[in-house]
């Protein structure tokens, strides 16, 4: 049982890199759904004892992060007839190199931030790495839809960090976090939809009319 969560966390990092390296939008969303699946398994694996709270948290994460949100994004692609390429502002190879840098930064930061004993030590570096890579995707991809993917990765990283506090943060707040993801993407999705109608493209780089 000691190594199983670590294996899952390793796969989380791999799915981060899959999003960075892929040329296709659908692969991005699949990697995100896979990451959601991994995140749903973690509360169950890390809990010291099973309780309805932990099971509900896992189930809620599974439904929202592995099914609903990826479906919603896929639906948005089809509905808005987005071209399937990712269209990064910087190339795929530099993106991956920056991803490696993010991984190093995540480990370096977590070395200076010691966790209290008894918590899975790998959670902090993986969480910080996912947060940084999420920000990277958010800032270096042109399409509004890929920016939503980046934002969701950012939220996933925060969720991972929240797992270190799962025993002390009340249930209500965890639910609030999931709800927050849902609402944010819901609203963003609507706006994405409007972006498509107004501009005939989902390219947020063309939103440059307002300048000083």
């Amino acid at each position, binding site marked *: 049982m000691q190594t199983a969560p670590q294996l899952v966390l390793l796969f989380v990092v791999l799915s981060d890199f899959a999003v960075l390296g892929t040329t296709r939008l659908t692969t991005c969303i699949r990697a995100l759904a896979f990451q959601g699946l991994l995140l749903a398994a973690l509360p169950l694996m890390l809990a010291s004892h099973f309780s309805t709270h932990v099971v509900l948290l896992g189930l809620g994460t599974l439904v929202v992060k592995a099914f609903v949100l990826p479906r919603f994004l896929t639906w948005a692609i089809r509905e808005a007839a987005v071209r399937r390429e990712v269209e990064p502002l910087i190339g795929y190879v530099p993106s991956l190199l920056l991803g490696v840098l993010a991984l190093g930064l995540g480990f370096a930061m977590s070395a200076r931030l*010691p*966790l*209290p004993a008894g918590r899975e030590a790998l959670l902090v570096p993986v969480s910080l790495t996912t947060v940084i890579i999420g*920000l990277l995707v958010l800032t270096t991809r042109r399409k509004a839809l890929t920016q939503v993917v980046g934002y969701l990765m950012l939220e996933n990283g925060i969720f991972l960090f929240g797992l270190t506090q799962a025993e*002390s943060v009340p249930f209500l707040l965890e639910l609030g976090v999931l709800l927050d993801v849902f609402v*944010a993407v819901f*609203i963003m999705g609507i706006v994405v939809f409007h972006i498509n109608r107004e501009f005939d493209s989902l390219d947020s780089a063309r939103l440059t009319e307002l300048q000083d």
Partner: protein
Amino acid sequence: MRLIAVCAFPLLAGLLLSGLPAARGPRVRSAWLVAVAGVHLGLVVTLWLAPADSALAGWLAADAPGLLVLTLTSVVFLATALYSVGYLQRERPRGGRLFVSGLLGFLGAASVVALSQHLAMLWVGIEATTLALAPLIFHRHDRRSLEAVWKYLVLSSVGIALALLGTFFLATAQAGVAGRPLVMADLVAHAGELHPAWVRAAFLFLLVGFGTKMGLAPMHTWKPDTYGEAPSLVAGLMAGALTSCAFLGVVRVTQVGMAAGQAAFMQPVLLGFGLLSLAVAAAFIVGQTDVKRLLAWSSVEHMGLLVLGLGLGGVGAWGTVLHMINNGLAKCWLFLVVGNVVLASGSSVAGANRGILRLLPASGILLVLGLFAVTGSPPFGLFISEFTILRAAIGGGHPWIAAATLALLAVIFVGMAVLILDVALGDPEPHAAKVPESAWLVAGPAALAAAVLLLGLYIPAPLRDVLERAAVALGGGAP
């Protein structure tokens, strides 16, 4: 009980309005808005007269900084509600009923932020204020409006996400320490035992996260676009109340950090963000041609002054809490007045709006007075609070910071005066005629102007007392 009522009442009123089929006409809606705002302010006044017990197991309480933000929000909201009576007669914002429901949802969420003693609940409240106001920005169905909403949503969502991570960091700092998790009173009481590295990390993430919502440079880029495109009364609420709520988040983490003995780490960071915001605002205010964007840059400036005062500590903390109130009132006043200008001409660009003093006399006078108020001229309240912050810089042994701040404030004054005096005094277009001004559209900003003037001449004793307690909580004191 009263604390729960203050938060729940506007939310319920908003829900009721969106569910009621009877609430069709704009008259019914604006009457509803004014009534709810009046009752809310009444409830808040009772909190000043007789302090309420904390509620929800200590999660809700009206401590000094919270009470100040709550009162500011309630006053600004009532002025905006009065204004909306005149506004909804002239304009039909998209969404109809939902426009008013969104405003009421904002009032409820902001009350939660102000009263919350639990930092996760405070975070939920700030998230809710974003969600309540975002749809209201998108009132015109065009590219510019869309771009503004997109920038606002992306940047403030990222900011709010980083603030959540900071909140988790603070919970980690508290691991193994006695007391309820993330409750302010317990965090401050056991601050000495918190893990210092996690407190520092939490401070940085919360400052950047909530700083994005405040519009501190360099996370301010959404601000001119959003304020420029949003309906003026929404921009007024954002600049007056929403930024103060986000600032309260920064105040909370500063309270914990000061108690934990991290002042030496936090102060240079706060000073850096403050000076950078002032410098960026000064650079963009000069040569600005759009009045609403000008006010947005002025808001960046004042957010900079707020964190500058926090960073200076001592009497600077007192100056900062007073400045938060003065800035909130003055910024909403100016946005509402500029709203009148936009209603008359359909644009906020200077070229389309010359000679406002002749065309809209009441709004014109309020606009010129507002220029002197927001730039910190006597006898307005902002003069006192800015002067106190400068005094803290000189008294605390930072003469260079005082000199730099003064120089930047002078540049900002000149930049703002050039544009606003041009709009007020310039020659109107030949075919422009005098526009009748509705009393509703003038009453709100005039009341706010009176309040800012009063705060410059005399600070009532109960307010003086609460200001001092807020400053002490931030590790400073009254001058």
